[in-house]
């Protein structure tokens, strides 16, 4: 015989799950509050407009300037360029693995792709610095191999496994009868993939793309090592840039506590947070819009 009634047990379990579930949100809220509290004081020194649109980032000058447009441009540049490389590569690999590859090939390649996902980013950064940078410099006869293009390749390399692995799951889980129905109506394999399977798995693919790119936005080590570190608005894809996470990482260790520079770095963190938030909003909108109703729900 039980000492606790099943009802009480149920209530207890309910409470535990509520606390666990809520803790994530509470911690996130606290982090956000902390960012705001440490970031906002910089706007006593510089207006929001001058901060976000200012082209001069000279935080340690005698007359400091806190304009982060070059840093935002650097982040936007590497993310756009790496997405342009990673999305087609990742999604096409997923289609190949789920639809075209022999099951044995799939059984070999998929675990390898997922293994790449686990590579420490500092290893990827080191590879970019020591191998890719001299190669790019020779190949394109550049001023420096540490630039936006190099950083984008490295970030794409990081994002592809995430995109491939999650998209592949989504494509693979499209119900068999949909595919068979399409084939039975006389569609070729390619028509089936393009018209039936991809639309049906679009919600999963969008999620995969967003997760892959979200990794690229927040990634710090790789951009710190290979992006070149020049706080300029890039004019070409071969210019060195200083994305926001790299800037925070490079300068946070040396700022005097609660100085203007310190607050400015937190405000950059706030901007970064807003970016990822907007991105996630877009993601949930996309996956909602393309959600398949009926038998093909994912």
């Amino acid at each position, binding site marked *: 015989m039980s000492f606790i009634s099943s009802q009480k047990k149920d209530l207890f379990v309910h409470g535990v799950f509520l606390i666990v579930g809520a803790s994530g949100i509470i911690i996130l809220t606290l982090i956000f509050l902390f960012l705001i509290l440490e970031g906002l004081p910089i706007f006593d020194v510089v207006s929001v407009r001058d901060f976000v649109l200012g082209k001069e980032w000279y935080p340690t000058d005698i007359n400091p300037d806190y304009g982060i447009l070059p840093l935002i441009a650097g982040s936007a540049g590497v993310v756009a360029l790496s997405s342009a490389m990673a999305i087609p590569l990742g999604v096409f690999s997923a289609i190949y693995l789920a639809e075209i590859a022999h099951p044995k090939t799939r059984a070999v390649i998929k675990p390898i792709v997922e293994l790449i996902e686990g590579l420490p980013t500092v290893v990827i950064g080191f590879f970019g610095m020591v191998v890719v940078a001299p190669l790019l410099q020779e190949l394109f006869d550049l*001023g*420096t191999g540490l630039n936006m293009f190099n950083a984008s390749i490295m970030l794409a390399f990081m994002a592809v496994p995430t995109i491939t692995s999650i998209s592949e799951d989504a494509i693979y889980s499209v119900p068999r009868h949909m595919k068979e129905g399409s084939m039975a109506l006389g569609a070729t394999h390619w028509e089936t993939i393009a018209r039936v399977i991809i639309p049906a798995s679009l919600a999963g693919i969008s999620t995969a793309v967003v997760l892959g790119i979200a990794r690229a936005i927040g990634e710090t080590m790789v951009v710190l090592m290979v992006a070149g570190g020049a706080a300029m608005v890039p004019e070409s894809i071969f*210019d060195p840039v200083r994305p926001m996470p790299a800037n925070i990482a*490079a300068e946070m*260790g040396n700022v005097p506590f609660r100085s203007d520079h310190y607050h400015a770095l937190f405000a950059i963190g706030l901007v970064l947070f807003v970016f990822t938030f907007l991105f996630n909003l877009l993601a949930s909108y996309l996956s909602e819009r393309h959600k398949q109703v009926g038998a093909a729900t994912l």
Partner: protein
Amino acid sequence: MKRILVMIAFLLMGFSLGPLPAMAGELKINGSTTVLPVTQVVAEAFMKDNPGFNFSISGGGSGRGITALIDGTTDIAQTSRWIRDSEVKMAVENGIYPVPFVIAFDSIIPVVHPDNPVDELSLEELRKIYNGEITNWSEVGGPDRRITIISRDSDSGTYVVWGDKVLKGDRMTPRAQMLASNGAIVQAVQDNRHAIGYIGLGYLTDRLKSVKVDGVQPTSTTTASGEYPVSRSLWLITNNWPSGDVLRFINYIQHPDNAHLIEEGGYVPIW
């Protein structure tokens, strides 16, 4: 058994060493990481000559060393720059009277790839390269290639001195790539035919070419004579005219017989 202990603590993020137990013959030195290698080498030799003597040497930057001296938590502050007026004022308010001693000289030298035909730049040309007015090697006698400008990160003391002596108050061009250490600059310039960077004299290797500035080749001789324009002194700062152990150490580090120790630490002796 007596153990000789040199503690090197890089004090980051506002942590600081607690008071060490008082021992006979002990000195606390705090401050610039540029000066650190020298004081370390000299302290080791000093301990060999004075068995049982202890040192506690820590880096953290010139500013931190001076703050520690003002707070009375260190015996000697090591700095790679002159003490600021505001710091002197604060010290006097705390009853501290800072006295500086030059222990060595250091030059900051522009370096390029050995294949680069440019051998000499004027201070004015260097200023224009670093403030972004000159962007092509052909403007200073080199090939028609864009200059890749490499600099130290803005927190570095070397950056500050370079800014004072070369840029003379101008802002560094945003095109400059900011690297975290002398070693990183050596690496970047030796791999890049179109790059220019600046490093401490002690970091010059065969795989780099140093550039004459205003016709003066940067060497330890031209640094010591004051001919080379981008040089600085390295200092130890004490509270009041030193006495006792502090005086013994200052005498030791400045003694001509120990000049080889300064060279071992990578800098130019005052003798």
